[in-house]
């Protein structure tokens, strides 16, 4: 979906990060363990379709999921702003990690231009779409049964 349908949905010159939103939504409703699993599976599928250095997308998703769970631990789960704050943080971490890997691979990205013309539009779009993804994750969570206890 991300590579076909969503890639046609260009807003402000960028596409929404569906997989990233799904990972963050899942971390918020089911916890880090299952969130990491979604990040790994989603990342590996995306690796097959992307021209980014191997492992960069998966690493970026896993890091975003982990940092989101850390941030979530310091906020009440019922806080209304949690999904919004989480997706802003996750998008910044995701693109920061991707840019780091691209830089390591020898690609010279103009940081300021990328921030203004790619990352900030992505943050905005993900922020707008996140409530829908979060509600979908919560609906799936209710259908799947109780959350596993994490120690």
């Amino acid at each position, binding site marked *: 979906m991300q590579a*076909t349908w969503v890639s046609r949905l260009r807003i402000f010159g960028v596409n929404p990060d569906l997989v990233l939103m799904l990972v963050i939504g899942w971390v918020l409703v089911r916890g880090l363990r299952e969130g990491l699993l979604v990040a790994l599976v989603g990342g590996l599928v*995306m690796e097959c379709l*992307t*021209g980014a250095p191997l492992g960069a997308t998966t690493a970026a998703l896993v890091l975003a999921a982990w940092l989101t769970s850390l941030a979530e631990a310091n906020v009440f789960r019922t806080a209304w702003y949690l999904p919004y704050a989480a997706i802003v943080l996750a998008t910044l971490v995701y693109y920061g990690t991707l840019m780091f890997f691209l830089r390591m691979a020898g690609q010279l990205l103009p940081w300021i231009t990328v921030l203004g013309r790619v990352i900030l539009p992505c943050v905005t779009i993900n922020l707008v779409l996140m409530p829908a993804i979060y509600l979908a994750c919560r609906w799936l969570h209710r259908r799947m049964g109780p959350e596993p206890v994490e120690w």
Partner: protein
Amino acid sequence: MNKPRHQAIVVILVLALILAWLVLDQRGGPNPIRDGLSYALAPMQFALTRAMRPVATVTGYLGRLSQLERDNATLRGENATLRNQITLLQEAAIENARLREQLRFQSSVPSYQLLSAEVIGRDPNNLIEYLIIDRGADDGLRRGMPVLAAEGLIGRIGSANAASATVMLITDSSSSVSAIIQRSRATGVVQGYAGLELRMRYIPQGETVEPGDVVLSSGLGGNFPRRLVIGYVASVEAQDVAMFQEARVTPAVQVSDLETVMVLLNFAPLELDAEEASS
């Protein structure tokens, strides 16, 4: 006058009238009785016909209701089929136009062996500019092969699986193409700028470059054939203290609208030949 007698007179009058009608009809001439009756009855007939028409329509509908339902179902089915056919024909017309454009391009460069491919996806990352096409190694695609559209150069094959391949677009930040300005013959390197636009770098100072100039591939380095249109100069940034000039280039091909591309099969990039030779 009593009632039976009255009735008998009426019967006799009616019979006389009928007899007179028959006689007049037999004579073949004008029949004043018929004409008079017609004249008297015509308005009533007209009014009755008008009044009965809706009733006749309704009774007609009721009589044909089941037939109408069958016809309706048949027509709905035919309508859906025809709509589908119209959509397919419209798609065929669009595809036809695209293929004609490709054919025109192919006939303008007969030495190129081109393979048409459909775009089936785009890179899921916003920082990477790749396309996914429906042709792969089984169709003869190899890494590095140039990918074109009728308007010009798009990129090159990044990797080829058995049935699909990725195309690294010239707008990707890791892409660079040796280029030449058509008018002034100034050389430089066109590089992708964060997937957003193209920049032509390393243009020697003193060379004249102007907005609107056509930028072509120069063929230097052997990774792309010569004389493929890359784009058009949008603006030039020249500083007296800098060693080179730099130009912003608008790509000739709008990649966001692409549905089909052409892969140049009979061109082997030099760097890949070297890699294969060493391996």
